[in-house]
């Protein structure tokens, strides 16, 4: 069965990269911001993996992670965060909030595929 990935980013281009990279093997739902992501989570849509940007205006990635972890349906699903190298502090916050791992931007599409494959058993 194909797995579903929700990817959250306020950058259209990142969403486009993630979806074009992964859509061959997975169903990818793109969400354009933290607020929208919270709405999707509240709806209880079926998701096997969340990939979220950390730095987003209004509702940031940490809140998305926390929200997901508070809903039993997603509490055990892997969550990957998209960060940049300079965000050590954020990375840690995200990890504490319950992120499974991270992908550092900019990334190679191949690297993204690899990491996703690892976490989405």
């Amino acid at each position, binding site marked *: 069965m194909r797995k579903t990935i929700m990817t959250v980013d306020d950058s259209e281009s990142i969403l486009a990269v993630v979806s074009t990279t992964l859509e061959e093997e997975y169903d990818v739902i793109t969400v354009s911001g933290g607020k929208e992501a919270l709405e999707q989570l509240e709806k209880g849509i079926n998701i096997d993996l969340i990939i979220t940007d950390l*730095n987003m205006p209004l509702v940031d990635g940490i809140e998305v992670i926390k929200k997901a972890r508070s809903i039993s349906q997603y509490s055990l699903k892997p969550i990957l965060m998209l960060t940049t190298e300079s965000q050590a502090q954020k990375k*840690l916050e995200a990890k504490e909030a319950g992120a499974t791992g991270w992908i550092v931007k900019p990334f190679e599409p191949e690297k993204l595929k690899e990491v996703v494959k690892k976490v989405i058993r």
Partner: protein
Amino acid sequence: MAEKAHHKFMQEASELIDDLEQSVLELEKERGNAAHIEQIFRVMHTFKGTAKMFGFDKIGEFTHYLENIYDELRAEKITLSEGILEVTFQSVDHIRNLLHQPAELAHAIEQQHAQLLEKVIHLSGAATGIETSHKAKKHAAQLYYIHFAPAPHFIKTGNNPLFLLEDLLRHGEYHMHTRTENIPSVDQYQADTTYLAWDILLYTSSSASELEDEFMFVMDDCSLQITALGTQNLLQNGAFLHDLKKAGSFTEKTILSLQAARTSPETATPAKTHKAKSASGNHVIKVTYEKIDNLMGLVSELVTTQARLSLYTDQHKTSELEEIAENVEKLVRQLRDEAFSISLLPVSHLKMRFERLVRDTAKDLHKKVHFISEGDDTELDKKIIEALTDPLLHILRNSLGHGLELPAERLAKGKPEFGTLLLKSYTSGAHVVIEVHDDGAGIDPTRVKQKAIEKGLIEPHAELSEKEIYNLIFLPGFSTAQAITDVSGRGVGMDVVKKAVVDLRGDIQIESTLGKGTIMRLILPLSLSIIDGLLVQLDNHQYIIPLSSIEKCYEVAADSITPDMNGLIVLDAEQIPLIDLRKVFDLAPSEKERTNLIVSRFGNQKLAIQVDDIVDEYQAVIKPLGGMYKHQDFASGASILGNGRVALVLDVSRLGELVA
């Protein structure tokens, strides 16, 4: 890269540049406006993260430095200069050019890029130090020592260490050793438990953080050390490799010593340790003490205001108001505790300062000592830590000078040649206890008494308990050193130490066994400014007793209190000294039939304090009484009550001394 994504990026980038331009223009007009700086930072951050993925490496490289500059600006580590503004303006045009690459300008853009890049590197270097200036460059290949030890339950978490290793070793050239020493005998072997650990020497151009990334999903389930050992590729050195294989398991030390043996010293580069830890305490933001002080000041005012609200609520009982006041009280309490925890520092801050002193002092005195510590992570108010530095230095000097014997003397007594000096810290209720233990000669009570008599501090025939004798040491002008040594006999006596501790509303106790050693115990409040207290009443006078020193309260019939001739009463089959607060404070005896006993403890000492009434628990913001009341030290301060009146905060241990 798919056409769709590329198109999206171009579109987004154009918008971002327009945003950027707008923000820079506004920033020029309102230089103090943090929102504009934040917006520019955001744009740079987004470019840095995305540009490279769409083939715009130059934009990625370039914006990385600009991001640094604006990060420093928004953190207010640097101020906005004309130069930064100018470069940002030029950058806007340049990024636009890089994005669209008009063919006729190719050469000019190339030149412009080199020039601007130099400027931003310079500015960001000035802003963040040299460290960042090479951060964006590809790492030069380095040699890493990696120790990877999965936790026993590792496989149960669904991870396979071998896959991890495979990914890791893909980064470069390597030598690996598998540690098997933890594998148990067959009968104890469990198939789902991980017993192995690995030592790896890896030569790669990946950075330590990239290597660390390979372990990101298992960080909490393993112990991992990644240490950069310099740029020299020792794996190419046949002799070194031979030695290393012979050594079997190895550590970073093994490598360094083998390296020293097999290579010329000048090529050996100092190792920089990068320990990958799963602990979260490492990541911190810096806040100035001033900000913390301001926060504490506001919290204190809030606590006082909250007390007024509670009082008002009591007088105008409506259920809604009561509920609100109750919530406010709860929140204020939480806020207070949070604010406190910010101003706490671990005791390890102190220990670091002492290590050198102990080493040097011991050497000067020809003594041998192991200086160890326990409970380094015990936390204390920063102000207390600062105020404790000198007293503790003095105690340590004393222990080294008077306590610990010379090595020969120790050996003759059958003690180990090396003495032990232990700095032990722990939290006990609302107090922090710091102890200095030494396993030296101990304090001889007869000698202390003799000395006190010689100095005229006590009468020759005074009957003193052991504790009272030890306390003589804290009297001004007392020094037990037989000869004035450079170390202890500096005119600064233990009286100064005691005063410093008492000024912190703390206490100091001595425990000593002749021939075995001494413990100096400092009992300190967790915080200096706000305490939880119990409000008590005598006539119309109200006093606050710190809850931290209270063990139990009893309400009893007044005539049931019958102290013996030593002022002791029996409570729960225990003899406890009684302090009748009325008597101590020269008030007329009470007519009331009921009275309250508050059993307090300070260190090892118990006291029963008799008061008329117990009013309530009270969060007290402690204000100093000031120098005019320096002789009334049974009051450690005063606090303003909800009704605006002042109540004294009582210091139980000083009260005890008052009646002793």
